[in-house]
């Protein structure tokens, strides 16, 4: 059964149809990529899944149940974690504190016991730290653990955002352009990490990405979009050679 599925989802802002009858299914344990030119509606689909937007039509289901009745802050409790295209970290906090915010949905002590820092609250903090430390280890963030985000270079921030999403122990990870702005080496690292996230951690990945090298090397399925509509779906090779996709990226070749 598919983990996440969209059925005929449509969203328009006034006259502009940002997402037009898009349907796809992401199976458990796969890496699914959304590609397409700017303005194709890829990030909008992410914001729909995060429930920041509500579709005009259609349904979004997680494990067969609709999530449209949920508030945005309830979606992460299903095990949906995401990153943002333009990095939305907590700037005036350290890397460690950022990752600990990711553990928010796993908190299990009352505010009162947190205020008094009871032994239960202390145990919980230790457990959070242990969980976060695993992610830090996995993504090699040790040198930055106690650094403030405001002073970190772009590439590291990108990784911290991935780390924060992983700290929530998600079942599906939504990565919004994980490699944009990264150097060739950093992109190479990202490829390894995404493969490890899929194989070692067993986390499903839904990804928006422009770097076709990255998409082709990690994706199981690719959906190409243009102007909010589906163009083609299939394996990376199938989509890359699909005439409609080539046309959307390169034009028809007719002059005049």
């Amino acid at each position, binding site marked *: 059964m598919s983990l996440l599925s969209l059925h005929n989802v449509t969203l328009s802002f006034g006259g502009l149809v940002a997402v037009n009858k898009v349907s796809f299914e992401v199976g458990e344990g796969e890496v699914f990529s959304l590609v397409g030119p700017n303005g194709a509606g890829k990030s909008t689909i992410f914001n729909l899944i995060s429930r*920041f937007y509500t579709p005009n039509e259609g349904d979004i289901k997680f494990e067969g149940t609709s999530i449209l009745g949920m508030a945005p802050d309830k979606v992460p409790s299903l095990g949906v974690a995401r990153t943002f295209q*333009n990095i939305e*970290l*907590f700037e005036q*906090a350290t890397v460690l504190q950022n990752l600990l*915010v990711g553990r928010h949905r796993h908190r299990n002590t009352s505010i009162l016991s947190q205020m008094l820092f009871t032994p239960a609250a202390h145990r919980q*903090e230790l457990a959070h730290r242990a969980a976060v430390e695993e992610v830090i280890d996995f993504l090699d963030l040790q040198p930055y653990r106690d650094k403030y985000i405001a002073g970190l270079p772009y590439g590291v921030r990108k990784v911290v955002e991935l780390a924060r999403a992983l700290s929530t122990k998600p079942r599906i990870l939504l990565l919004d352009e994980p490699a944009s702005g990264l150097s060739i080496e950093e992109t190479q690292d990202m490829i390894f990490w995404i493969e490890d996230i899929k194989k070692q951690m067993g986390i499903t990945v839904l990804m928006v990405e422009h770097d076709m090298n990255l998409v082709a090397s990690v994706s199981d399925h690719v959906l190409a979009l243009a102007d909010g509509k589906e163009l083609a779906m299939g394996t990376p090779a199938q989509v890359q050679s699909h005439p409609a996709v080539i046309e959307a990226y390169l034009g028809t070749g007719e002059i005049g």
Partner: protein
Amino acid sequence: MRFVFKTSYDADIGLFKHKQQMAWYLLLFAIVIALPFLLDEFFIGEATNVLIWAIAGMGLMLLTGHTGQASLGHAAFMAAGCYFNVILLERGVPFVLSLPLAGITAGLIGVLITLPVLRLHGVYLAIATLAISILTEDFIVIAEPWTGGVTGLVAPPISIFGLEIDRYGTPWLFYYLVLTVVFAILFMYRNLLRTPTGRAFTAVRDSEISAQAMGINVTRTKALSFGFSAGIAGLAGALLGHFAGAFNHETFNIFLSIQLLLMIVIGGLGSIHGAFFGALVIALLPQFIAISRGWITDLTGFSATNIPGIEAGVFGLIVLLFILFEPTGIYGLWFKIRTYFEMFPFYRKNMFKRQKTYLKTERLK
């Protein structure tokens, strides 16, 4: 330079970063405990005043410094705490109950009043809370049967299990009472900041969008912060009532709200230290000006006692200078000086220069 080698998670979770830091705070603790033995009665009163301002400052710091919501209405919550405490005392409720109850009530009022305005951001939230502050003044006058209207109320002497505490009769006892409240709030404040609730506060401050994406209920978190903040302000108000002895609607006018906000800006937003530094400035400034007026008169022969509005002018100048040259406040200044000596000679001039970030996810909705 010092390197702290962390060997357990508790090194990060603990209240102090390392032994030496703990030693400094123990020294500070010893000083504040010994203070009544070192000062005469007038200055004990001034020290108490600083602590009461610091409590109110901590209340607003939690909301503005850590949750990022500006409020110009905190005089209202101080008034709520102050009046409720005295009204309870007059009805025969013992002080050990009336003080916490006053804090809790102020907190609940804070949550109730602010729930409708929580959808507002930034300057709009400030305006809405400003309105609350103005309305409170009128409400106190109208609710005369409880509040005494324009004539106000007189705070009865405090009695804790037979121990009589009076602001003028036994100022050192009142000082210790206020100090106890300070430590109780500090303890809970620090604990909140190192647990999920406090991290949710700072997450909401830095990015509401990604706080939501991490499963934080933004509205609930803001309301919670408002509640705690108003509650702490209420405690400060109750103590202020006892400190002032008598109070009426003018004690809690709009200028108190503004002073509070400016105070934590001067102190340094986003750190508990800032509330204390700001309180030192705001509570001692009038005394300092009064003393320096005497000096100026002695030095120049020119009578400086008659110039009106010096206090507000000097205070405004201080705020202006801080916003222009040191937006991180006194705590930021102190932090830089400390880092300079800790890292000597490796400190660089632009070490704390803020990077401008132009990339921000376009606001959704």
